[in-house]
């Protein structure tokens, strides 16, 4: 941690105009294929002693296997089944997820917002792609898309329709733009007909999109 934050006592120039000119120069000199450029960058940084490739591997493993929307889904299922936990989650979500053993990277200041029959929350980052990694993993392409970033703050109902979510005019919509250090997760509505299900079964129903606010959780289809 400490190590990661260290960069020596170097004073870095941090000037906007300089970087605009630099970005233009970089772009005009480097090849167009990103796969090639990224590969070259990795070997260069390793050679310079600034990067350990095994650390890159480790991060990829972690985000493929340990961190993803299944974390968020279990938090949702717990909140649905344990009123005292739900209360702690709504009051101090960051603390509540640590209690369950979940990590905190990009969820250190987490706020959970609850969808009800009267209020529908959805989350965006118009300026980049801020997202609660620890609970939902890496944001899906649609969340990072220019289409979503530009349109959801202007026409949330139009976006929701594209995702197949139709809301009545009486439902209040709240679009949370993650402009700062707070990360948002939506607590979706528990669907009817799930009274008999346990925490594990409930978690299996909770989709990634429902925790960003672009889906509702559907009741399970009854199998034989």
């Amino acid at each position, binding site marked *: 941690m400490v190590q990661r934050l260290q960069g020596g006592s170097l004073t870095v*120039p941090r000037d906007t105009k300089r970087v605009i000119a630099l970005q233009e120069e970089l772009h005009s000199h480097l090849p167009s294929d990103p796969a090639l*450029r990224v590969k070259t960058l990795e070997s260069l940084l390793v050679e310079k002693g600034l*990067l*350990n490739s095994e*650390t890159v591997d480790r991060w990829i493993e972690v985000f493929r296997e340990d961190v993803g929307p299944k974390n968020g889904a279990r938090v949702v299922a717990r909140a649905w089944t344990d009123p005292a936990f739900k209360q702690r989650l709504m009051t101090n979500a960051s603390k509540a997820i640590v209690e369950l053993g979940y*990590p905190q*990277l990009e969820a250190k200041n987490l706020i959970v917002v609850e969808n009800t029959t009267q209020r529908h929350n959805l989350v965006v980052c118009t300026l980049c792609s801020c997202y609660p990694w620890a609970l939902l993993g890496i944001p899906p392409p649609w969340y990072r898309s220019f289409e979503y970033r530009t349109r959801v*703050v202007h026409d949330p109902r139009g976006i929701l329709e*594209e995702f197949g979510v139709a809301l009545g005019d009486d439902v209040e919509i709240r679009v949370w733009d993650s402009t700062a250090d707070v990360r948002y997760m939506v607590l979706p509505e528990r669907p009817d007909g799930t009274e008999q299900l346990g925490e594990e079964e409930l978690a299996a129903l909770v989709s990634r999109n429902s925790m960003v606010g672009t889906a509702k959780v559907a009741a399970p289809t009854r199998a034989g």
Partner: protein
Amino acid sequence: MDGIHDMGGMHGFGRVDLSQDEPFSKANWRARMFGMELSYTQPGGFNVDWLRHVMECMPPALYLSSEYYDRWYWRDVGVLVNAGWVTIDELKSGKATRRPAGQDEPLSPESVPMILHQGLDNRRPEPRAPAYKPGDPVRAKTHGSPGATRLPGYLRGHVGVVEAYRGCFVLPDANAHGEERADPLYSVRFSAQELWGDVKSPGDLMLADLWESYLEPTNAGR
């Protein structure tokens, strides 16, 4: 900075592509770019506000035509070349001509779980009491910072209501340019009516997290 990244409310974009996922394996350049960004020793230390700003300085046509993780590439090489740790020739050839002096060993795989679990935090002790409380009307300032800022253009000049106080956090406008300063942060609520005028659902609400420096009382002279 009113760059291309500040796109909330901009028109001209079509339907959202709902494809859910993309390849993410150790052999895939996107995943490697992701992992690299979390692993390399950054000049001057890790500074999320500077990283974001360097991406915002990409040529707008390139920003719009580059894939997500390719924008990460341009950001990170911008950070490295700006600091003099890497040259354009090195980025072309992949051959290092010199090593930055005095750097510790790069981040080890063993450190990954700790960073993942602890996370990074830009929250700071409160230097003073917050000026606004929930329910207060506030106006987002008309003029943004010429450098880094996290006050989106679509909110500028508009009046909202403080929804919640979130604590004191490092101000990106200062931090990106090398000065750490804590400032109270609020979630502020705006109506679609106020932001966009004649829309189909004027009662829809947009909320954003705005630092106290971005806000002024609604009775401030305009």
